[in-house]
């Protein structure tokens, strides 16, 4: 499990991360979503141990971490096989062949002749060379054509099947919806919202209810009504409306709201795909 707690980082006067926290469970693919300059690469560098946080900590619980930077850079005069041999310290040719076959690359290709997609695949092979438990991928599909993206997605899903925990960032939200278990929206140096992608895929929609003040017993009240909900904070509840029974659930929700002791300040529909949620959170 990867746990990030209250991580803060500033470059000069510019505060990039401001006490950010989240956690990724073992075997999950976690997607980091945010605008350009939101701090995704800074966070990745901190998680990979390449950069130090000003405050807070990242704990990977004795796990090995592999990292693919957003613009992986190689020694151009080497071949793909030689580069992996170099990273393996010329000690494990079987491992090199295994990795090359995983990312579907020949071993004699000169790196300077590789396409962007092939470079990303070589980068993924390099990132998993130490058989890490956690793999961090910064923009692994950016600037790739659809077939290149599909190749990378297929490799990532293979890695997930092997039980790897993966954290990736990308601007291509459709890719996130396809492969991520959970996503977090990074804005103003914090994870502003997290959600499980399965909630989107199940055709669920959400209603966010804000109460005027925190009232004891609200959670029990909604549990008794058999409502599916998440407590965002004491005054904000997020209710899930199941796709098929949406109308029925809405009826139950409004009855529960009418009979609860707290005064409702606002009721708001939440967006139900990553693109619209991105606009809502980061727009």
């Amino acid at each position, binding site marked *: 499990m990867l746990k990030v707690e209250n991580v803060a980082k500033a470059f000069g006067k510019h505060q990039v991360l401001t006490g950010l926290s989240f956690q990724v469970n073992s075997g999950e693919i976690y997607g980091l979503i945010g605008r350009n300059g939101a701090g995704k690469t800074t966070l990745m*560098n901190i998680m*990979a141990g*390449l*950069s*130090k946080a000003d405050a807070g900590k990242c704990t990977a619980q004795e796990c090995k971490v*592999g*990292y693919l*930077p957003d*613009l*992986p*850079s*190689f*020694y151009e*005069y*080497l071949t793909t096989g*030689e580069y992996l041999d*170099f*990273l*393996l*310290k*010329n*000690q494990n040719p079987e491992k090199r062949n295994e990795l090359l076959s995983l990312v579907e690359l020949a071993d004699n290709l000169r790196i300077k002749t590789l396409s962007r997609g092939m470079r990303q695949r070589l*980068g993924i092979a*390099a*990132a998993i*060379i*130490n058989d890490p438990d956690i793999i961090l991928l910064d923009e692994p599909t950016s600037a790739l054509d659809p077939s290149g993206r599909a190749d990378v997605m297929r490799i990532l899903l293979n890695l997930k099947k092997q039980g790897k925990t993966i954290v990736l960032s990308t601007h291509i939200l459709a890719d996130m919806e396809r492969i991520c278990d959970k996503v977090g929206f990074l804005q103003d140096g914090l994870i502003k919202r997290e959600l499980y992608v399965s909630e989107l895929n199940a055709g669920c929609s959400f209603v966010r209810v804000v109460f005027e003040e925190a009232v004891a017993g609200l959670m029990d009240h909604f549990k008794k009504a058999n409502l599916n909900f998440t407590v965002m904070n004491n005054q904000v509840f997020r209710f899930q409306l199941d796709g098929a029974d949406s109308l029925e659930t809405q009826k139950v929700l409004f009855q529960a709201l009418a009979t609860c002791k707290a005064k409702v300040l606002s009721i708001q529909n939440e967006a139900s795909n990553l693109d619209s949620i991105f606009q809502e959170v980061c727009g």
Partner: protein
Amino acid sequence: MTNLSSLLKKDWKEYLRGNKYLIFSLVLFGLGAMLLLTTRYFPLLMDAMNQLAPGMVMDPQALKQTIGNFYAADMRTSFGLWAPDVCLFYTILVVLITLNIIPNERHRGCWIMPNAVGYKKSQILLSKCIVYSLGASLPVFVFSLIYYAVSALFMVHDLTFGEALIDSVVLTIAMATIVVVTILTSAIGKHPIIAAISIIVFVLLGPDLLALFMFGRYLPTYILSYVYMMEYDLGALIIPIIEIIIMDFVLFKIAVVKLEKCEY
């Protein structure tokens, strides 16, 4: 393989496949040949013709006869004098090629993955220093020996093989030192081009200026003026070489501390 041997293997491939050895050798031998041929055929020839055979240019047969008489006995210059000058010009090229190796690799993020699998920044730096200093200085050694041998064929033959060998070794050490200092200062400084210009100016002017003073014999730059001065006092090299070793060691330590502080 250990980390360092893997890095050395990788850097040699980079050095050879990047054709840097070819550039270094071509420039070195090109400059040497140019100097040799120019000296052989042009400057002294015209002066000598004017003095020894005025009006002879009009008669090709007589010119041929004059050239036959003129070489090799009458050339008044030892060719040993020219080898360090060729190497000084070569230095400019070597410094310009090597100054950007470390900043460029760091800027592009080439070290991220090697660091992640356990290669230390100090090992990466050491490997670069070894490969590029050997790569740039070995052509100097070969060139110097060939240069002395060729020049001995038709110029005043005033160097023994032993002296030529010592000169070649000293020039090789000087070149290796210049490359190491260039790589290390480029890793330390924010602006490698300033470091490179400083090194070039210092290499071109420093030895001659410092040789004017007595204390110049006890500075690292003496190794550059040693060959030119043709004194062949090997004992005089001990202090400069010890200073060079200490200087390289200190620069290496500073560069490693600086690199360790840098984040990606």
